């Protein structure tokens, strides 16, 4: 058993202090320590994108970062997008309207990848959207409706 470290992390604008073992992944920290189960865990080696979160505003794989490394940093998870279920983020609203999900397992990771993407590319082409989605696997939709949803979101946001 290795020494525990005390860490303080801001998640969705709320500060949390917890004791963690160094080997605890940020994905597990969010789910098991904070109960924020919206961040999904798929492959745990950075390929599927289900666990994507925003780390100081940039999309990253939470399964490839140790929780201790997030000490003092600011994290946004899918739970931080909407104030409540009747006031969705325009990206979430677009996924709803364009049927951008079926089982929903990949959706949180896709949303957390697309938010910084749309910030950097407010008027993306379909090609750019598909390229930006390449780091997130979806096994239900065939991506067509996901691409449509991101297009719709770009219109809504701009």
């Amino acid at each position, binding site marked *: 058993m*290795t020494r525990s470290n005390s860490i303080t992390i801001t998640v969705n604008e709320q500060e949390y202090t917890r004791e963690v073992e*160094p*080997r605890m*992944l940020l994905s597990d920290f969010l789910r098991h320590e904070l109960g924020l189960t919206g961040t999904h865990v798929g492959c745990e080696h950075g390929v599927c994108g289900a666990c994507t979160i925003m*780390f100081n505003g940039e999309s990253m794989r939470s399964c*490839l970062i140790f929780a201790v490394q997030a000490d003092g940093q600011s994290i946004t998870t899918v739970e931080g997008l909407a104030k409540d279920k009747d006031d969705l983020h325009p990206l979430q609203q677009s996924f709803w309207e364009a049927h951008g999900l079926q089982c929903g397992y990949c959706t949180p990771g896709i949303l957390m990848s697309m938010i910084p993407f749309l910030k950097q590319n407010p008027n993306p082409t379909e090609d750019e959207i598909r390229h930006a989605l390449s*780091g997130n696997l979806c096994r239900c939709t065939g991506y067509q409706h996901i691409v449509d949803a991101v297009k719709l979101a770009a219109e809504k946001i701009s």
Partner: protein
Amino acid sequence: MKPAPFEYHAPSTLDEALSLLSEHGDDAKLLAGGQSLVPAMNFRIVQPGRLVDLNRITELSYIREDGNVIRVGAMARERHVEFDPSIAKHTPLLHEAAPNIAHPQIRNRGTIGGSIVNADPAAELPVLMLALDARLKAKNNSGERWINAQEFFVGMFTTALEPDEILVEIELPFMPNRTGWSFMEVAPRAGDYALMGVAALVTLDDAGKCESAKLVYLNAGDGPVNAKEAAESLKGENLNEKLIESAAAHASKNEITPFGNVHTSPEFQRHLANVLTIRTLKQALQRAGESQ
């Protein structure tokens, strides 16, 4: 799929990190972006007793011009390399190839130094370092030394670094005038490990003849593979389709040794190398001509 227990250190200076490394030797592993190390730890392929996390060492994260070279701190994120204006201007090969390095989410965290030191034969950055004649600065407790990219990559996941050394800086010479570049790879999915990839450079002389050429391949052997004979065959020539095709055939038949994997046979990799060499050389030649 959870890492084995380890002791964790997060030094805030390079000196501290070097001391930890010399104190703990082989037991300590450096953690840069972690985009290759953490997956290996999650699968317990790697079980280091100690991690020395370099992410708090801000002095290792910079990209700046210095005379006719660009100096890149080893902890600069791949995403910053991708968008840096000096790199785009003076080493356009690196700028253009960067989006092929995994996915944006990985490049946001992954570092140039981490990928170079990992020395994965299928990775883009070792190939680009060789193509660009980069020099790599290593430091330990007693001093520092420079290593040419050509000598740095020793084999599969193996570099010339000693256990107590840290790669601290990458020196990239500006690409010479009248130099055209091209990088192409074929991957099952954008951002996945490529089945085959090629970096090509062509420099023309005043008369428009090939002054020098370079062809470096990924996933084509136990490290980045420099096809020197094929490149040499182009030197001093007025490049045309026939010369390009024969260089591509030579490199793909004789100078690379692809192993194949679950997605591809070595024969198909050689086929890809041949096609990609022709395409990259043509593009590099055209760009070299445009910059005359």
